[in-house]
């Protein structure tokens, strides 16, 4: 029962909130869809912290795609042994994780100590930072603990199949039963992060401007029909 709630109900609730939340936010709050950059206030610390965090988190994302979405059988078919995969994943993952954490630490320090940045911080931001930090710290702790204390934990036999099973619409909550608590906690905190995601400034990730690489430099647009108050009424509608 507990397994069903944690590893079936919660994930689907999260996915629903994540998708519908974004749709709703995009429809209702396009104007609020922004990075809310604070570079104008302070740039010295940001220039170290922000790339460190963002590139770190991009590598972490790639690592998670590799670890969760790609079945172990595929990597083995490609000739990568479990040990080789594990070493590469742990080294790069830990490195990227610590970069992310260091970047985040610098950014949070900057946010707290730079007056204008601090006064531009909303309650929403603080909550988001808390959850984000928790996810990263727990995830990093899980990796480090599993590899330092134990001899590594092969999440590709439990967490990954469960993760994929959710998307196959054939959830297998029992796989998560014996997963170490830190990994469980990391997964749950990530679910929480995805729940609040559409309602925070994190939405800017979904509009990463990759289209810039292909579009023409200068954009021409005709006068916007929506600029004014009403669409022009039909002749028979005029008073």
């Amino acid at each position, binding site marked *: 029962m507990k397994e069903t709630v944690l590893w079936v109900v919660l994930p689907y609730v999260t996915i629903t909130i994540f998708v519908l939340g974004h749709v709703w936010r995009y429809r*209702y*709050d*396009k*104007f*609020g*869809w*922004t*990075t*809310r*950059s*604070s*570079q*104008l*206030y*302070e*740039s010295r610390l*940001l*220039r170290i912290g*922000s*790339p460190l*965090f*963002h*590139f770190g988190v991009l590598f972490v994302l790639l690592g998670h795609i590799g670890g969760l979405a790609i079945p172990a059988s595929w990597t083995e078919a490609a000739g990568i042994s479990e040990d080789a995969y594990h070493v590469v994943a742990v080294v790069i993952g830990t490195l990227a994780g610590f970069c992310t954490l260091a970047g985040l630490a610098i950014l949070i320090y900057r946010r707290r100590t730079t*007056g*204008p940045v*601090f*006064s*531009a911080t*909303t309650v*929403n931001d603080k909550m988001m930072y808390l959850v984000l930090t928790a996810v990263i710290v727990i995830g990093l702790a899980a990796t480090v603990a599993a590899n330092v204390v134990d001899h590594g934990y092969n999440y590709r036999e439990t967490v990954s199949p469960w993760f994929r099973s959710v998307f196959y619409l054939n959830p297998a909550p029992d796989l998560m039963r014996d997963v170490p608590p830190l990994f469980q906690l990391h997964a749950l905190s990530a679910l929480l992060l995805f729940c609040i995601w559409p*309602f925070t400034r994190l939405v*800017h990730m979904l*509009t990463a*401007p*990759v*289209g*810039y*690489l292909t*579009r023409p*430099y*200068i*954009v*021409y*647009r*005709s*006068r*916007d*029909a929506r*600029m*004014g*108050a*009403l*669409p*022009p*009424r039909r002749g028979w509608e005029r008073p």
Partner: protein
Amino acid sequence: MRVMAQMAMVMNLDKCIGCHTCSVTCKQAWTNRTGVEYVWFNNVETRPGQGYPRRYEDQEQWRGGWTLNRRGRLSLKAGGRFRKLLTIFANPKMPGMDDYYQPWTYDYETLTSAPLQEHTPVARPKSLLTGKDMKITWSANWDDDLGGSPQHIEKDVLVRDLSDKVKAEFDKTFMFYLPRICEHCLNPSCAASCPSGAIYKRTEDGIVLVDQDRCRGWRMCVTGCPYKKMYFNHRTGKAEKCTFCFPRVEVGIPTVCSETCVGRLRYIGLVLYDADKVLEAASTPDDTGLYEAQREVFLDPSDPRVVAAAEAAGIHRDWIEAAQRSPVYALINTYKVALPLHPEYRTMPMVWYIPPLSPVVDIVRDTGHDAENAGNLFAAIETLRIPVEYLAELFTAGDTKPVEAVLRRLAAMRSYMRDINLGRDADESIPGRVGMTGELMYDMYRLLALAKYEERYVIPTAHEEQAHKLEELATECSLDYEGGPGMGGSGPFGESSGGAAPIAVENFHMLRQRQTSDSPVDPADKHTRVNLLNWDGKGTPSGLFPPEPGGPTGNPPADSGAAETEPKP
């Protein structure tokens, strides 16, 4: 030939008295909101001086505009698409708040709420960013009228390129004002820098705008614009810029800055240009060739072939007629007295300037010579290197010949018109010396000196069949559109959320909120804030006046809101 129409402006710098009326009215109309306190879509700089933001012209530092790469092709100076995306997490070349200035307000409340004491209470400056006490050290026009120039004049970017002799002298010899708005370039580097594609050039009139719904706050446009006329709203996290007052221009009224210009030095009109030739012109190998290259891009609106092509391109007949009467085209191409600001940035700017002759005239007059005599003025233009070299750095990438030619025309006009005004026979040799006829010179004089409102601002309206789409036409209730803002306020994620309101609605609510507000920074309590800059003298915002004897009686104004009726301590 692909004909497009461009709304453009020319400013006659001889007439600018540096009163900042354009800046103030523009600020009132467009940037009187939190997040853009430091923003001046229109600002007036004293030259020589650093400008706003400080030293914005130093493109070796700020990397704005375009440059030619090794293969001679046009590329963004701050780097291409990949470079932009790689540096998107922290823009390496973005001016900080200190390069503009830290916006502030005053703690006016102390003046009325301070207890009885020996010393007069003072309203201390408070930062609008932190709400803390601050020391005011800079502003958008801190070096106005060469104020503090012994310390600051060396920092003028253009001075670097002048000779040493000129440097030592020039703050004694001349000064003029340079009002600046967005250039609404034909080849806008801000739009090219925008990763989201939110900045666009309108096909109808060439006005460059930011789509507030598509801007994601990547800040690359701020770097991209060499004139630093893209601003980052630090509350909403979106870029904002001069709009050429499009809601006014669409209904045929000039921009706020032009309308309120005391010296009547601004001209607005259409220019037809060949969009196919823009890239080629912007890629002119030599910086000094860019002024001529840009003039070549403009099409003669009275040429029947151009008219035919314009009609084929869907430009309406009344727009073509407006282009034929355009004062801007006349000043640029017929009289050839207007010059572009910093053509070397290769953005093809569309706000042009008639350089000031007054520095030359002043010097000639101060030496006791006849400052209306064409010969004296011509000789002075040739000998006075200081103003000419400086103006050339500003308007022609350092090439003094076009500047000299313009100044000679202005000098000739001055001299020619004196004879006529004094009832003497006009000396037709004077216009001849600058390649003009007497008639042409008289027409130029009329346009520069006498032109009435309708001649200075030739603005064709948007078409009536589109009228319902226009922002400021009160043909329908501007509040009632789908998903409209109703009675204002902000969305669930604070000030920056919720749909963008029509400008008229936004201004209405903004002013109302401002009139009933009280503390300097926190947007959470913006409903009770007073900003004297925006207070229009109506209503009695809470905290602005001492309590009336006997409590708040009488009739509170209609807009008063809850704050006014609170009993005062």
